[in-house]
């Protein structure tokens, strides 16, 4: 069929249907063609994305780092993308993940390790992806008053209202050993087996030569889901809001948790935060926004629209005035303190959100980067962050088999999706909401695009180069060791 014939038959059909004149039909085709041409040159400015699903439910846990989600809703960034979002507080991380997998929730505020753990099949198996990293830092390790006094007696330097930071676990070690000879093992709380807190408290303890326990018996290969094989300190899961109460009940001697639960221990006078994760690893990834890979496939435009709104929320949260003070954090704290969101008292949330942290009631320190939502490219999903979690999972035996270096990189690319982030950023730049400088400079042709440069901003000064995961795993004194030839595979 020639094109002329085609147009004629087509216009006949159109004419039959609408009973209009031939001129009208032709003009439609003409306009349609023009429109198509125009479509290619049309700037997307101010045009909404054609979202597949516009009524969404997201889950979150009552922690201050769910802020980007709350802000995107309350400041109407979601609505401006044509999304009607409902936020639902969840009882714990397990329920949250299960509900995302079952489809009751479209997406959720997740621990950075959750999409990774789920995808590689540690715990519940499901392919979860993350296009947006919600924040950096924001956790602390708190020990009970009694333990703090023991630590002080082991290290004179700590006997000050404002001791020098960072505080390592060195002064804890004699106490751990003393307890062990008494036949009693020290207990500490963390939030979830694949949570940042677990790896952080392990890192902190292991850096001082205290073994936090493996998820695997290295000799026999037997799997231990409690992660207490060979442990000097027993780590157990406690939901964040119950941490202070559990500490007070002396079930645990310390814990690693996000805000506001460290500040609450200070406010209630039951514990002393000894370190924040900013000291353990400067600008470490903390929470991410996760959806199932299936969901992202079915809703390609929606996920970009969500990411757009989240980026705008992150930018709003980290907006600074000329003197570097966060402009909107007070308002954010007020919104977060509503009972349907985090719900803790405004005064408690304000502390960490506005860049202060009480280590003791006498020791208030400015911590401007305690919560970073957007600055330092905190919202970009770096592959290297994913690789770090994978190396820690291997280090402690959550990944029972040896893996080659290439597996780490491929897995990271399956879970972290900077392509979605960049697509959203492109839209935002076209709409003038975002400037190019606000994006990390990524050279797409580079094999290692999306990897942060090597860093030794760790409490033990150990260097982390995400490009060499096997070497990194082997660099720890405490931890599972790998065959070096795996790094070539």
């Amino acid at each position, binding site marked *: 069929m020639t094109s002329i014939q085609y147009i004629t038959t087509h216009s006949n059909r159109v004419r039959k249907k609408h009973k209009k004149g031939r001129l009208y039909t032709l003009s439609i085709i003409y306009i349609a063609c023009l429109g198509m041409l125009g479509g290619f040159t049309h700037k997307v400015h101010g045009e909404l994305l054609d979202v597949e699903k516009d009524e969404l439910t997201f889950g979150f846990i009552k922690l201050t780092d769910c802020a980007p989600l709350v802000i995107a809703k309350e400041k*109407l960034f979601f609505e401006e993308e044509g999304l009607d979002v409902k936020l639902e507080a969840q009882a714990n991380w397990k329920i949250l993940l299960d509900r995302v997998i079952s489809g009751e929730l479209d997406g959720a505020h997740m621990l950075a390790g959750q999409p990774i753990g789920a995808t590689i099949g540690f715990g519940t198996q499901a392919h979860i992806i993350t296009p947006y990293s919600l924040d950096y830092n924001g956790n602390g390790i708190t020990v009970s008053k009694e333990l703090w006094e023991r630590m002080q007696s082991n290290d004179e330097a700590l006997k000050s209202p404002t001791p020098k930071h960072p505080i390592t676990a060195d002064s804890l070690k004699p106490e751990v050993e003393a307890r062990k000879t008494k036949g009693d093992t020290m207990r500490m709380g963390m939030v979830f087996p694949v949570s940042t807190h677990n790896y952080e408290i392990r890192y902190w303890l292991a850096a001082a030569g205290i073994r936090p326990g493996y998820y695997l018996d290295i000799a026999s290969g037997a799997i231990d889901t409690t992660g207490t094989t060979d442990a000097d300190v027993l780590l157990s899961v406690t939901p964040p809001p119950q941490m202070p109460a559990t500490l007070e009940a002396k079930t645990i001697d310390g814990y690693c948790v996000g805000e506001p639960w460290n500040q609450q221990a200070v406010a209630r006078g039951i514990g002393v935060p000894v370190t924040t994760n900013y000291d353990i690893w400067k600008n470490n990834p903390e929470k991410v926004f996760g959806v199932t890979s299936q969901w992202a496939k079915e809703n390609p435009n929606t996920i970009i629209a969500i990411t757009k709104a989240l980026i705008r929320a992150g930018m709003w949260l980290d907006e600074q005035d000329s003197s570097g003070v966060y402009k909107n954090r007070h308002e954010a704290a007020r919104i977060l303190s509503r*009972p349907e969101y985090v719900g803790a008292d405004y005064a408690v949330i304000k502390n960490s959100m506005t860049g202060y942290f009480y280590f003791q009631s006498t020791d208030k320190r400015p911590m401007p980067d305690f919560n970073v939502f957007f600055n330092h490219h905190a919202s970009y999903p770096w592959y290297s962050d994913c690789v770090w979690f994978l190396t820690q999972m291997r280090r402690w035996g959550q990944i029972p088999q040896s893996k080659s270096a290439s597996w780490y990189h491929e897995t990271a690319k399956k879970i972290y999706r900077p392509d979605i982030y960049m697509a959203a950023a492109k839209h935002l730049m076209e709409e003038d909401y975002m400037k190019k400088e606000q994006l990390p400079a990524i050279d797409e042709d580079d094999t290692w695009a999306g990897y942060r440069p090597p860093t030794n901003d760790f409490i033990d000064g150990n260097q982390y180069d995400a490009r060499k995961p096997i070497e990194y795993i082997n660099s720890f004194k405490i931890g599972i060791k790998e065959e070096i030839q795996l790094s070539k595979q």
Partner: protein
Amino acid sequence: MKDEAFYRWITFLKKIRFGWLAPFFLLLKGEDPKTQCKAIFSGVMMPIFSILLFLWIWDLASKEIVTKFGTVPGPRQVWSAWKSLGNETRLERIKALEHQHRAREKRIVSAKKYKEVLNNFPGEMPTGLLSPGTEDALSTSSDAFQQANELLEVYNKISITLSKEEAQSVAALFQYETSRQYAEKVIQQALPLEIRHRERVEALRMAPEWNPSPDDPDKVVESKSALKKSESKKLAREKAILLIERQRYATEATKAAYALITSLPKSVRTLLAQSDKSASKLYPELKAWHENLLAEEAATGVKYAGKVKLKMLVKAFEYKPYPGKDTYFAQIATSLKTVFFGFCIASLIAIPIGIICGLSPNMNNAINPLIQIFKPVSPLAWLPIVMILVGALYVSDDPMFELSFLNSAITVALCSLWPTLVNTSLGVSSTDKDIMNVAKVLKLGWYKKVTKVIIPSAMPLIFTGLRLSLGVGWMVLIAAEMLAQNPGLGKFVWDMFQNGSSETLSMIMVAVFTIGIIGFMLDTIMLSLQELVSFD
């Protein structure tokens, strides 16, 4: 005759558990005042007296107990928390209205923006994309919303300012007269309390006893504990009063804001309503148009440009409810719905099985061990099983029920099954022998015997069972909702507990009273039904 009706009314009152009203009626009727007064005293005064006594003791005790969250809330704080829940509902309503307002704005913008696109498509263009006058009406209501938001903002801003001067400068910031006036009022009445409290806290923190030198640890402990005793109670009490006071102002602010929005001139309201109406009419028309176009495109293969824009326009005209949080009252409704659903499932299973068990001793012996084993199982044990099974079996793309709803309802059903089952079987098996003999003599068929003789005579016991079941179900529900994330009262309690704020305890107490009162009402209803079906 009239007397007979009156006494029937009195018996009825007693049956529906309003017997305490009877003495009043009898008194009006002119019965012996002394007996009636006695009845009123014991039936009405005594309960009121005991409630008052309870409140008084609670009030006294609450002031003395200081937890790490502050004082234990007394009746006044719980009352203020209850009011704050009403306040939240009002805020949600304001938000929903704003959402509706933005939808209107969006429609106007889209209609203007895409009018040209519309002209390029085949077919008759729907009329009435823009109703005349709507734009003006919208800008009037925009003003109202802005003013209302300012009122709320005044409250928020002032409640975190530290000094009177600061508060006054905040007040001056506001554009509208109403918000400025309101600000002045808050400054005059509530702020001094707040500032005084803050000064006290600050003074205490600065006091040398609070931050003693670590050289003399004994002195530290001594002085601190002394201070704690005298000051922390005082502070906690002060804070409690402050919270109540603040709540009062928050309530007032939302009330005023809501009034502003809803008091738009009538002409404006009519215009807006008209615009909503025409939009809701237009939506199916636009949608059909869009779908026609897509169908035609699929048939002819010619692609229309600007189709996406048309879709966006259609979307702008779609009505969507405000995706807000569940208010307390919505949560109560969810809980009631869940418990009734679970209760109905339980009854539908328990009554037939109970009848069968009651009719045949063999069946009864067969099923009895199962009943005895499953009856004492706690909902917390059922729930994980139910969650896993329902999650696996109830798979649908467009589910009629939320999973969390089904999980809690089925757990309720599993736990509340047993009292009905046991009582039904007991009721059926203890049918009067004489009646059964009569049925035999009349040569009634099996079906007639069951429906006409056995069930009616077992009715009182069946209802006793149902009543116990509903009570168990309501109790179980709260636990089930906590874990299953069903958005009802259980989730409310759990969320509040997780908040860990100064309002946590009073909010949970509000929930406790709500649960108690609703449970009491459900029981009363079932009891009256039971009385009404039993024929004496």
